[in-house]
């Protein structure tokens, strides 16, 4: 029952010549502990959508409910909501500012009103959970590599102990290994703490590998909402809105066209490999 969006609309520059409707009648239900991917081309409304979830942006019309409470209610503390729904922006390392990594991660909980000791305890746990070695903690954040800086920024949000973690393209600009490390860490947090995770991404391969539910945004509306398998089976429609399916899905469709009995729904490398090997086995053909 975690987060409910009820017919949410958002209009930029309302009643001016530049009026643009960024969200159109969005109704969604995000359950506790889900791992959700959000994809869509630039300008499809992804970022606008996620900024509504922690009350950074206020819907032009419609309602948003967090754990059953209306977040636009006068008595509802949106300040507290921002601690519960942690948002990691794109290129979060640009927001690092403190002299040491540890001090930077303490900033969030201190701002929430925790005393120094509690804030430090939370920072300690958060830095541990993103897997940054301890001998880095008292260095300047600016000496770190891109991937490490990003971990520190994620730790800064985790230190506020959110129930929901939203990441806006956390892997943009990272090398392949850095990409895998960050996403593996996020998946681990999701598993170990039952943290609800919402991952905005441009990489179809990444969302296919990690998420359980995939939401596709197009022109301010939800185009598809389902498991990655269901969503990527509409690959032709996805292409028409500037997206695509993972490379292996196309491969599987090509193989089927050549009369091979493989699963057309495979979206990850493992699934594709398994299905191809199985097709060979079923035909009774020795593979060596």
């Amino acid at each position, binding site marked *: 029952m975690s987060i409910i969006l009820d017919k949410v609309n958002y209009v930029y520059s309302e009643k001016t010549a530049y009026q643009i409707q960024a969200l159109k009648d969005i109704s969604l239900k995000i359950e506790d502990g889900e791992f959700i991917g959000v994809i869509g081309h*630039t300008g499809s409304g992804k970022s606008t959508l996620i900024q509504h979830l922690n009350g950074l942006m206020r819907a032009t019309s419609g309602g948003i409910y967090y754990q059953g409470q209306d977040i636009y209610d006068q008595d509802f503390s949106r300040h507290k909501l921002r601690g519960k729904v942690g948002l990691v922006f794109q290129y979060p390392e640009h927001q690092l500012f403190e002299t040491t990594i540890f001090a930077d991660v303490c900033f969030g909980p201190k701002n929430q009103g925790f005393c120094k000791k509690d804030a430090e305890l939370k920072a300690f746990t958060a830095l541990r959970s993103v897997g940054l070695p301890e001998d880095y903690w008292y260095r300047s954040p600016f000496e770190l590599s891109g991937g490490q800086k990003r971990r520190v920024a994620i730790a800064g949000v985790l230190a506020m102990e959110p129930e929901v973690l939203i990441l806006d393209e956390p892997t943009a600009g990272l090398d392949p290994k850095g990409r895998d490390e960050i996403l593996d860490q996020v998946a681990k947090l999701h598993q170990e703490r039952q943290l609800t995770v919402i991952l905005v991404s441009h990489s179809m391969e990444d969302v296919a590998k990690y998420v359980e539910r995939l939401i596709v945004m197009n022109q301010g509306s939800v185009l598809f909402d389902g498991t990655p398998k269901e969503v990527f089976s509409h690959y032709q429609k996805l292409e028409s809105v500037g997206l695509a399916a993972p490379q292996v899905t*196309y491969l599987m469709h090509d193989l089927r066209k050549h009369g091979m009995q493989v699963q057309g729904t495979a979206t990850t*490398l493992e699934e594709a490999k398994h299905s191809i090997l199985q097709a060979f086995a079923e035909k009774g053909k020795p593979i060596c």
Partner: protein
Amino acid sequence: MKFIEARKLIHEYIRRDEEGNVESILTALDEVDLDVKQGEFVAILGHNGSGKSTLAKHLNVLLRPGGGTLWVDGKDAEDADNLWAIRQNAGMVFQNPDNQIIASVVEEDVAFGPENIGVPTDEIWKRVEKSLKSVGMIQYREHSPNKLSGGQKQRVAIAGVMAMEPKCIILDEPTAMLDPNGRREVLEAVERLNKEKGVTIILITHYMEEVICADRVYVMDNGKVVMQGTPRGIFSQVDTLKDYRLDVPQITLLAYELRKEGLQIPEGILTRQELVEAICRLY
């Protein structure tokens, strides 16, 4: 003809304390040899901090060599008199399109470069038209850049470089901030410039798929060139690439995994088409 020739190129970032004493030295380029022929499409791969961007900044002399030699377009990069001549012939496109666009109308933005180097007005307009056409953005010439998508903005930035009529364009992670469509648009524009106009291309990227169409690939690690070869040659060494924190395209990885399981698929598969054919031959 050689366009770029680097021999044992060294660059060090030196950090000093308040008294000017050296605190630490980071060797970003460690005796790098690089050869790029006129009209070639060369890709440079490497993890974050491997020295790719430092190398790129040398190629149009935003940074000066700390050791070794570098010749660009037959001119010595160490000679300060050659600075402007080299920069005119080696244009640079950076990662973030928003940092590179300065005018409020697309065509004025593209005109900024040639205007700066003193091209006559008639000629400027001819060049603006030609370069916007070459990246497929001519229909947006009178638009405001801030209403464009990321891929479109990046193509405007490329047009701006093209209008200076350089022999070479260096692109430092031009697609890192773009969605799949934007990435495709930019790459298609880059390939077209290389094939149709013969512009030398140096592409730095983290997306392995973008490297497939390059003539040659260099892999950097810790400031050194550790691998070089054709995309096929490089991507057939899956394990070595992983050691350098890199990856191979998903299709290549699948082919590699299937080979490990015993399927007789040739090494260095790059495209979907190739893998489909290889599998069907066995089936």
